[in-house]
């Protein structure tokens, strides 16, 4: 384990690099310098990590570093560019890179879902709004872009706050996670649990059974529980079904068995329904409310003051210029 000072030194370097990049319209040389320092700091920290962590090896291998670098670089680009549209595009890049990482982590469903939801849906909405807001501006000319895009607000404060947090998180990652226990490396219990889940879902079991040659006519014995007995190693299982009038054990093995116990989408779905039913409902409620909210916000008319209304309809304003006393009172 490296000394904490090394990690914190890298963190400070990274903060310095970000600070360089956050300057208003930095020169290309500064940009380069910032990029090099930042990437160096990031990889430096990554390199300090031990390869084994409590005996659990994470998947990803050689894919990790490229994806990680892409996402970090795009993220930095996103917050330093003065063009909002570019920022959105850089964010898409971040999403793509991280979806790659999700896939390597075995979360295939999420990898795709993130791309679809973020890159496909959310980012498009952002783009719409950006376009809507920036119709009048010509984004190509640096000087004509609005100030609020060109100049960062308190870059030093932002960098300090953010990287203090980062330092803390790094500190914890390097020293403070001793309490975490990796999941059971022994795959057998997980497989058996997966079989149990399949057993609890008779319809799913029948789908698999029907894939087995000669079992298309199979049906569940009426009024009885589905009898599914996995092998001790969990690599195969036997399910008892009715074919014709005869109760027949059918063996699920090979590809079918893998499908039954390792299908990511199904597992996530099952986990979602099984373990978080209330949260799921709540998420639904939130989405519904968001929809209502969006509708109402879109319908909301701008409420004008009396004066503004009069101005809009060409009448003179009242109240302000004819009686200085009331004005004084108003402001008092």
């Amino acid at each position, binding site marked *: 384990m490296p000394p904490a000072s090394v990690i914190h030194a890298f963190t400070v370097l990274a903060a310095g690099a970000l600070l360089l990049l956050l300057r208003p319209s930095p020169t290309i040389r500064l940009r380069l310098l910032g990029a090099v320092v930042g990437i160096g700091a990031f990889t430096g920290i990554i390199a300090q990590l031990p390869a084994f962590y409590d005996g659990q090896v994470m998947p990803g291998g050689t894919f990790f570093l490229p994806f990680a670098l892409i996402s970090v670089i795009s993220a930095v680009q996103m917050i330093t560019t003065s063009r909002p549209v570019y920022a959105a595009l850089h964010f898409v890049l971040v999403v793509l890179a991280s979806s790659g990482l999700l896939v390597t982590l075995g979360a295939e469903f999420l990898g795709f879902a993130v791309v679809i939801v973020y890159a496909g849906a959310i980012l498009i909405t952002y783009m719409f709004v950006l376009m809507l807001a920036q119709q009048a501006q010509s984004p190509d000319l640096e000087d004509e872009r609005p100030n609020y895009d060109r100049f960062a607000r308190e870059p030093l*404060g*932002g960098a300090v*706050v953010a990287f203090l*947090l980062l330092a*803390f998180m790094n500190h*914890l990652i390097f020293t403070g996670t001793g309490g975490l226990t990796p999941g059971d490396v022994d795959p057998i219990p997980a497989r058996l649990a997966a079989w149990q889940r399949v057993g609890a879902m008779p319809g799913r079991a029948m789908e698999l059974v029907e894939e087995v040659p000669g079992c298309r006519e199979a049906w569940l014995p009426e009024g009885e529980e589905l009898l599914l007995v996995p092998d001790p190693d969990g690599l195969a299982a036997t399910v008892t079904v009715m074919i014709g009038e005869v109760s027949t054990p059918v063996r699920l093995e090979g590809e079918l068995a893998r499908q039954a116990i390792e299908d990511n989408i199904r597992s996530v779905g099952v986990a979602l329904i099984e373990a978080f039913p209330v949260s799921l409902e709540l998420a639904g409620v939130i989405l519904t409310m968001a929809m209502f909210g969006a509708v109402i916000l879109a319908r909301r008319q701008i409420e004008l003051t009396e004066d503004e209304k009069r101005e809009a309809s060409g009448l003179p304003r009242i109240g302000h210029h004819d009686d200085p006393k009331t004005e004084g009172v108003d402001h008092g």
Partner: protein
Amino acid sequence: MIGSQLLSLLVAAGDAAHSADHGHHSVHFPVGVPTEGLGYAGLVLALPLIAMILNGVYAISGVRSKLPAWTTVACLGGAFAVVLNLYLKADIEHPVVVPLFEWINLSWGTGSISAPFGLYLDSLTLLWMLFVTGLGTMIALYASEYMESDVGPAYCRFFGGVSIFLLAMGCLVMGDNLLTLYLGWEGVGFASYMLIGYHFTKPSAVAAAKKAFIVNRIGDLGLALGIYLTWMHFGTLEYAKLFEMLQVDGAVAAAQQAMSGGWEVSIIPFLLMAGAFGKSAQLPFYVWLPDAMEGPTPVSALIHAATMVTAGVYLLVRTFPMLELHPAAAPTVAWVGGATALLAATIGMAQYDIKRVMAYSTVSQLGYMFMGVGVLSTFGAAAHVFTHAFFKAVLFLTCGAIMHGFAGQLDLRVLRGLRHVKGWRIVVWTMFYASLCLAGFPIISSGYWSKDVILAEAFANGRPLLGGLGLLTAGMTAYYTFRVWFRVCCGPKPDDHDLAKMMGDDHHGEDHHDEGHSEDDQHHHHMPHAPKWAVNLVLSVISVAAVGSIFLVPEHGWLEHMVAKSSGAAGVGANHHELPADAGFWADPHGWMKYVASTVGLIGIAIAAWLHLLNRSAADRLRATLLASPLKVVVRAMENKWYVDELYNALIRMPLKIKGHALHMIDRYLLDILVVDGLGRLPKMIGRTLSPLQNGVLQSYAASMAGGVILIALLILVLPMLLDLIGGVA
């Protein structure tokens, strides 16, 4: 009935003289044992209680007759009859405990506090109850006439108060444990409070009542602490058990107790003493008693002269074995008593208000009683209590009669020649006899006999200085007593004009007297009205009783017998020193004291006669001479009661009041407004300090959120260290 009582007392006295054994090492006295079948003794308490309740009912139902008085007299008379019956039935050698009901009874593990409500009937109890209930009945009868102008709610209140007093006094004297005594102790204090404050519209009466209660409470605290210590050390508060423990070998056992119990046990007698001094108006607590004369005269006579104030003496005699837990206890009592006697006598000499003179004389005589207890003559003390109760009651009642007749006039410079006024004969001559008793006139006065015992014992006990002090006081007593009598009763015969003048100045007045008589014709306003039958009867009966007490008090008499069989026994035996047969006249104080005390008393009377009867102008000349001399400081001080009230006010009351105000200010401004409200404002102030953070810029909110997270994170990192630190400290 009174005749038969006297007869039986005399018979008992004769028996006692022969049967009592007075070896002074034999201090063993019988201890009460629980007995069945005497439950009716509870009537002594129940009857006053009934009277009290009935008086309450009368007050509510608006009775406007003398019914309350008759009810009270009947109930108290009944109580007296019960006591008499108990006395006649009782075997003095075998005291009894009569359990009535359970009051406080707690136990846990091996400890317990038990204060059953029971009666301890031994000779001392009976002695006290005889004169308490007897005098109570008599004085209630007297008051039925004396208070007649108040007939109505106030009349009920008065007799209700008297009933409460008798009830509480009964608990005090008859209770079989210290807690019941304490119950009665506070009860008589309350009764006294109610009755002193009887004329509640007079601020002075209200103040006097308050003063009496509070000063008594100071003593009561001592008594209470003494009771706690007694319980802690002896594990019981019941007399029977206490006496068993204490009197194994008399004084020796007590000393052992004191040795084994450490300082806490040895201060028990001093704490009990504090209670006794408070109730019996001794130094330094005596100040309430003279003020208590604001109450109606029957109350002064009954409570503040004859009965309640002797409760302190009773307490010390009752717990006499405990007095020996510390060797300095008895001498302390003696010296406090002696000092009080002298101080009160000096003040009494310089007062003009006859009731106040009597009040100070009471304080002084109580001092004698304590001196008696202190010089180990419980018999002398009890005897003096007994005789004093009668003659002082007479003195007060005659004062009351005069006050009543002369519309509140009490100034001895104004009153004169009562002897010559029609209808006052009984008052004048009973007062004369009572004065003789107070002055210690030889042979025919009861006071002479009882005082002698105490003074002689002082010398016999090796305290000649104290004895000398007592003799000096005796002389002063004789002087001021007869100063009053000569001034008030003798002198030239007053004509109608003089009488009217006597009644004119109503500065001591019981205002309601005038109101009460407003329907009467004018004539009555200007002429004194002589007492009627009830007052005369009561005065006569009590005077006869005072005469009768002469036969009871001499050594080896009935009274000594009564005391010798009680807890005061240790103090009785001591006064019979074995003298060698050829001892000289001066060797036995009991011998020569008779002559010396008589001489001193007579000298006092003679001076009074010279200054106030024969040559009244000499008194004024003397006073003028004294005032011109360097002694004027002393004279002024005596007339102003040695400025003790002022001193207490300056040293105790005012500082406390100032502290009260100061604490109130501290409470209000420092604690409440500064600290509490200040702390309450703290959140607001913090809010004001931090409000710039709320600048409406979204990014800065985000930054402060992140800052908060960082703070929490730091806390998580630092907290374990902090907890370690705290754990280490704790």
